[in-house]
């Protein structure tokens, strides 16, 4: 194994890790806001990829341009899912945790079924987009442009999110609602509105990652499943409740995955991710940066 192989693997792992972080951050945001894990997160990603694909196929809109549209569409979708389903799941007096898991899990199945019904199970992909298939070579190390761009968006999204939560009124309302929904109601903030916006924001972030993913990944109704588990692990590894944790978690997951594939047979590369997760939580039961 040459040094070049190792550097290339780790570079690829880092880029992929940033993307994992971007996929996971929406999940982290929603959880941080209202302690709900969205088990349909992978399907949100799937929808975002399909929207990107159809905008490209019918309007020749490059994923780079359609990214804001996809994010906006997912924002609406996320808010609607909150208002139609999650709002009631949170209200459940008994077994709130299980109700959330299984109502969003049921939603995931419905979304896959609907995708198959309307989009057919055919595999789609976005061909000849501006970034797709292009790559940058630095000293023999290849960095694909879609993933580079994804990494950039991920970093920007995290910086933006940081300022948004800490510096804007809405961000502070999110934070306050999370801490004490009852008290917030007294000062005239509508809890449902804040939560719906939070869900929209979380989904919009998935929309960003979906638009980027569509430039280099195939699209079909079950595509979310490959990423969902990684997203949950990423969030938990970073620590529930911490947006920065999801960022760090993503990078760790990407690097560990790449490193494991160098050491073990590649078929076992996920074992590395799983083992690191277990190690971390056994030592720190709240994840790396978790607050709860």
């Amino acid at each position, binding site marked *: *194994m*040459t040094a070049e*192989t190792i550097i*290339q*693997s780790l570079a*690829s*792992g880092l880029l*992929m890790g940033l993307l994992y972080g971007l996929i996971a951050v929406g999940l982290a945001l929603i959880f941080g806001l209202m302690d709900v894990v969205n088990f349909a997160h992978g399907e949100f990603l799937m929808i975002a990829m399909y929207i990107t694909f159809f905008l490209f196929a019918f309007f020749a809109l490059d994923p780079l341009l359609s990214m804001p549209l996809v994010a906006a569409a997912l924002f609406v979708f996320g808010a609607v899912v909150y208002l139609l389903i999650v709002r009631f799941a949170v209200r459940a007096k008994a077994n709130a945790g299980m109700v959330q898991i299984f109502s969003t899990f049921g939603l995931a199945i419905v979304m896959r*079924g609907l995708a*198959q019904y309307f989009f*057919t*199970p*055919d*595999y*789609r*992909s976005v*061909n000849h987009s501006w970034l797709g*298939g292009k*790559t940058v*070579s630095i000293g023999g190390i*290849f960095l*694909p442009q879609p*993933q580079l761009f994804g990494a950039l968006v991920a970093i920007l999204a995290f910086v933006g999110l940081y300022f948004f939560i800490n510096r804007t009124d809405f961000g502070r309302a999110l934070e306050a609602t999370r801490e004490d929904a009852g008290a917030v109601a007294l000062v005239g903030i509508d809890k449902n509105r804040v939560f719906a916006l939070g869900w929209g924001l979380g989904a919009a972030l998935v929309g960003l990652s979906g638009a980027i993913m569509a430039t*280099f*990944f*195939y699209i*079909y*109704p*079950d595509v979310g*499943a*490959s*990423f969902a588990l*990684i997203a949950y692990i990423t969030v938990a590894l970073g620590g529930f409740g911490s947006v920065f944790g999801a960022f760090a978690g993503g990078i760790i997951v990407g690097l560990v*995955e*790449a490193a494991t*594939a*160098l050491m073990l*047979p*590649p*078929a*076992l*590369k*996920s074992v590395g991710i799983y083992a690191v997760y277990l190690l971390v939580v056994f030592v720190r039961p709240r994840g790396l940066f978790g607050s709860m």
Partner: protein
Amino acid sequence: MKITRRDVLLGATATAALAPLGARAQTSEVVIGVIYPLSGASAQIGVDAQKAFETAADLINKNYDFELPLAKGEGIPGLGGAKVRLVFADHQADPQKGRAEAERLITQEKVCAVIGTYQSAVAVTVSQICERYGVPFLSADNSSPSLHRRGLKFYFRAAPHDEMFSQAMFDFFDAMKKKGTKIDTLALFHEDTIFGTDSGNAQLKLANERGYKIATDIKYRANSPSLSAEVQQLKAANADVLMPSSYTTDGILLVKTMAELGYKPNAIVAQDAGFSEKALYDAVGDKLEGVISRGSFSLDLAEKRPMVGKINDMFKARSGKDFNDYSSRQFMGLIVMAEAINRAKSTDGEKIREALVATDLPGEQTIMPWKRVKFDSMGQNNDADPVLLQYIGGKFVTIFPPQAAVAQAVWPMK
């Protein structure tokens, strides 16, 4: 249950409508069960398969002028022109569900034969159930060699299995080497389900027997979110030939990742699967000029056998796609089964089995480049010669074996 009753009613109405047409044997329709993944991760295959089987049923049930068994005339003459009716069932790639569906088709729908299943793991349980009920099962497109070696009486496979396919690849390598092409090292790249494992094992064995060096043997997890690390290792090994055994999803990701990491192998010789799917070439065809895939079907057979092109058009009208390695085998699966039922002159399982054992169909009466269809004692057709196809200028041309080839192989690939 409601739906069954409706089906029965529909069947009855159809029978009544046909009744004045004249004398028939007591069997007015032949019900054949078709088990495929119709939802879940491989639903696309199942949905395409439906179209292939419907095309075959249409050929049998209506009058066409093709040199294909049962195409001429309507229905199955051996049973007084009885029509073929297909009942589709969804196994969702789960062996247990495949088993339950096979049992339902046999006991409730009274099918006289079962065809399936795409996933080899499901074929294991479906064929077991068929064996228990004495109903013939035909593997249309399962390529796992272990399937026919289980001593089942009611198991049949008209198409080649992975060892035959891999053998053709190595025959091709030997032939190329004789011509002076440098082929010493191979890189195996296969997924970790039954298909990739079987294929990888067969290739490993053949490579050792015939003195090729395995530069790297990578087994990867199917549907991985990323293949960067795997491709990196392929690139480092830089073998003379890359031999992937991948389904469509991983195939697309593999080719894209290879381009992104600047890996351009000398030659790719693929174990079909994803590499015969239109979706893969739609996605990354521009990067695959010169890729070689094994197959049991080639459209350029249409030049020698015009009906192949016409039947392909019929399939295309239904599905919007050309026949590929899977849909062509599925199509032939029903034709072979119906041809046997015709000779059996019965829908009794044992009689159909006897007819299948006696099957001897010349290759010209198929849409495949096969020599003939004739089953050995284990139910395998050993005369189903696989071919190697090369993707040139947006379509596949046959390059091997010499008797079927229409062009010379382009080596290395562009």
